[in-house]
């Protein structure tokens, strides 16, 4: 299991999406998110996209006002996770059309459905945008 959690956070440090693949209590989550966000937000553009925190390695990438943070274990390929974040953003872009913070806030469940199609139990399931979005588009058509 490579991916431990995925967070989307705005630049004020507010969590906009959180998906954990291991059990943490609510308090632990809040504390962890706070610490990580503080650490990542303090870093500048030139610095590398990896931050070590507790047992996690955080791979993060910033898109406009939104930070995408992925917590992985030590075995994971950091560069691949960086590429995965980009894939996630591209997928959301394709669905929402230039995704922004509000899209994710107001369509939280859709964002989760996409994530569900891409990652399961901490492993990447699918990397084709068409395949990822197919069930979601089907749902949109039906409703």
């Amino acid at each position, binding site marked *: 299991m490579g991916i431990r959690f995925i967070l989307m956070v705005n630049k004020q440090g507010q969590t906009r999406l959180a998906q954990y693949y291991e059990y943490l209590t609510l308090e632990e*989550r809040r504390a962890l*998110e706070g610490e990580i966000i503080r650490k990542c937000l303090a870093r500048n553009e030139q610095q590398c996209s990896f931050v070590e925190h507790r047992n996690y390695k955080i791979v993060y990438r910033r898109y406009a006002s939104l930070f995408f943070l992925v917590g992985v274990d030590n075995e994971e*390929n950091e560069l691949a996770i960086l590429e995965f974040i980009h894939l996630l953003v591209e997928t959301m872009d394709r669905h929402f059309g230039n995704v922004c913070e509000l899209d994710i806030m107001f369509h939280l469940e859709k964002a*989760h*459905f996409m994530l569900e199609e891409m990652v*399961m139990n901490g492993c990447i399931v699918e990397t084709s945008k068409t395949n990822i979005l*197919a069930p979601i588009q089907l749902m949109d058509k039906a409703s």
Partner: protein
Amino acid sequence: MNPFSSGTRLRDMIRAIRACKTAAEERAVVRKECASIRAAVSDNDNDYRHRNLAKLMFIHMLGYPTHFGQMECLKLIAAPGFPEKRIGYLGLMLLLDERQEVLMLVTNSLKQDLNHTNQYIVGLALCALGNISSAEMARDLAPEVERLLQFRDPNVRKKAALCSIRIIKKVPDLAENFVNPVASLLKEKHHGVLLTAIQLCADLCIVSEEALEYFRKKCTEGIVKILKDAVNSPYAPEYDISGISDPFLQIRLLRILRILGHGDADASDFMNDVLAQVATKTESNKNAGNAILYECVETIMSIEDSGGLRVLAINILGRFLSNRDNNIRYVALNMLMKAISVDGQAVQRHRATILECVKDSDASIRKRALELVYLLVNESNVKPLAKELIDYLVVSDQDFKGDLTAKICSIVEKLSPEKIWYIDQMLKVLCEAGNYVKDEVWHALIVVITNASNLHGYTVRSLYKAIQTSGDQEAVVRVAVWCIGEYGDLLVNNIGMLDIEEPITVTESDAIDAIEVAIMRHTSDLTTRAMCLMALLKLSSRFPSCSQRIKDIVTQSKGSLLLELQQRSIEFNSIIGKHQNLRSALVERMPVLDEATYSGRRAGSVPAAVSTSQGNTLNIPNGVVKIVDAPLVDLLDLGVDEPAPTNSSAANFLHDLLGGVDISSPSAQSGTMQPQKSGTDVLLDLLSSGSPLAQINTSTSDNKIPVSPLNSLSLSSPLPAATSSMMDLLDGFGPTPTPPAPKDNGPTYPPIVAFESASLRLMFNFSKQPGSPHITQIEANFTNKSSDVYTDFIFQAAVPKFLQLHLEPASSNTLNGNGSVTQKLRLTNNQHGKKSLVMRIRISYKLNNKDMLEEGQISNFPRDL
């Protein structure tokens, strides 16, 4: 449907939350929403269940408790429609976890959905199972998942494969059922299926040795071929990332090859070609390509050696390391750490570059590089590397100093070629970053210093110079104070000059100035100040001419609010003023600390747990206290059944040796217990310093003060000044608050012969006061078995820290021929009922003006005392 019947719409709730300016406002909105959702839950509202759950997920994301919505998930999952199920499963994955009992209720719904005709519903169920399955569920539903591995739609097969990973992790026995299905999945073309099948394959190899063997034999060839195809495949837009075909798949393939090739020459041989191809053909100007190269290097490093490939891999890392992109440099450092065990020489070649990375502005890179440097250091390069690191320490960021200091100290300790170099380097570190140094580090330094007898003078002079410039670094001050106390005479007389030294002129009063500055400095903490007092006491004997000045400085702490300082001040004052005859013996130089013992203790200790603060000692539950005590017990050679010292013992051990502070939070103790306890500790400390006999606490020796000021502290009313006549002293006992217990109260204990030698017998009579079973009153009765007169009779006792000992003055310090002397002791057993009493004693006296000493251990106390 009336939209106003059940609170606000989801969209409105999110708007309301966004509009909140403060956390308090947000809490209010959330509380209101939660209340209406709870109401809907208890009304069993069907129309808005879907929306309420969506709201709950949002609220959960914000970090509020949402457990009351868990049953709603189950209801939605059990609903027939796809939209309900979908949100229900999402809620299940977000709001529940495998630890909750509620989860068991969902097993049946899952089973039905896994057998559903709609492939999307099957997909939902698989996803949920894969994310949160417990061991029981895994066992129950494994047959369904196994079957789904052969489902007609590849999108279901891929999810079934990942779901299987969860199952075999939860129930490893089931692994063998999945080996064959996976082997057939590996022959597919669908990228999603391949990606997940390879991951399942990797996890099976980890769980089961047989599976690993099986895949190694049957599948290596197939996997190599898939990778070859992926590398050479024509442009496939769906999986292409910046010109590279499905990097995620390639990375997974490289990873499974690593598992298959590790420790198996044949399999490794088989994959050589394709690895060489990946390493040479992959473009390195894009992140995706570098990700593959990175993975490829790791695989080459892990499989069995074939020289050519390793060279290729190291070259790639070299290229990475000199890349301008920080991400690439970061992973290069990461990989070099793994490569170091494979090819240390090759990594050493990049030492200069790595050292530059330690000074990078990026904290992540610095951290990696520092760890790598730490691994690179060996006997041959320790000097230049340590120099570089220490030079950098001067200019490094505040928040990096902690890490850097710890590593430097560790390197220097581990690899120092000679003691003088070690001492020099440690002094530099202490001067630069003394506040970041852990206590164990400067404790270790002191141990080394005591062992380097030819360097004592040099060290104390260097330290003296160091605190002139770096007086703000606590650790350097402590070490300096300790050394000046011990070796003050070497400091002022320039004894033991080394050739490299320049002579300095330090007068006795300069040395005392240095300590006075340290004790007066407002940032000095209790430990430092206590050490200062100790050093002053020692100097009072080394520099007799300054005795009065030292006494004045010591006296200033008499009114300290910190009990420990107050006590030391009063005690030391009394030693300096009234006990000149024994002072010089009392403050003799510390015996050489045994390095082996100390490092042994350290090895067993967890550095993070080491702390100087013993403030909690008394409050920690039993057992822990004992651990803390262990080193001291050791020192006193008390043969208690003690556990191997762990954790904080090392620090405490030295701490005690250094005359360290035993801070027991004053509020935790009350009344007269406090001075008694600490009094005992100080006695123990003094005893442990190895100085010849000295009795402060109960002394009735040759001077004319029968009761030392110490004792008057602990007694409720000061004893009237008395002469040393026995009768007067006994009279003085009148007001003591501890009369022997009446006989008919509480259990009685038979008296014991605690100690007997040819010349002496010591009897103990026990009594307890009703209501305080942990306190034992002991009346010690010393009988002179000979007809000679023993003068200057002194009885001393030491106990492990779970006991508190209070000695009252002896009835006389002279034992006439066949006469006897009594002395009262009070023992408080903090672990009453768990541990028996134990005591180590020393009896000294003069026989015809010849010093006699008898020692012994008393362990035949009646149980239950």
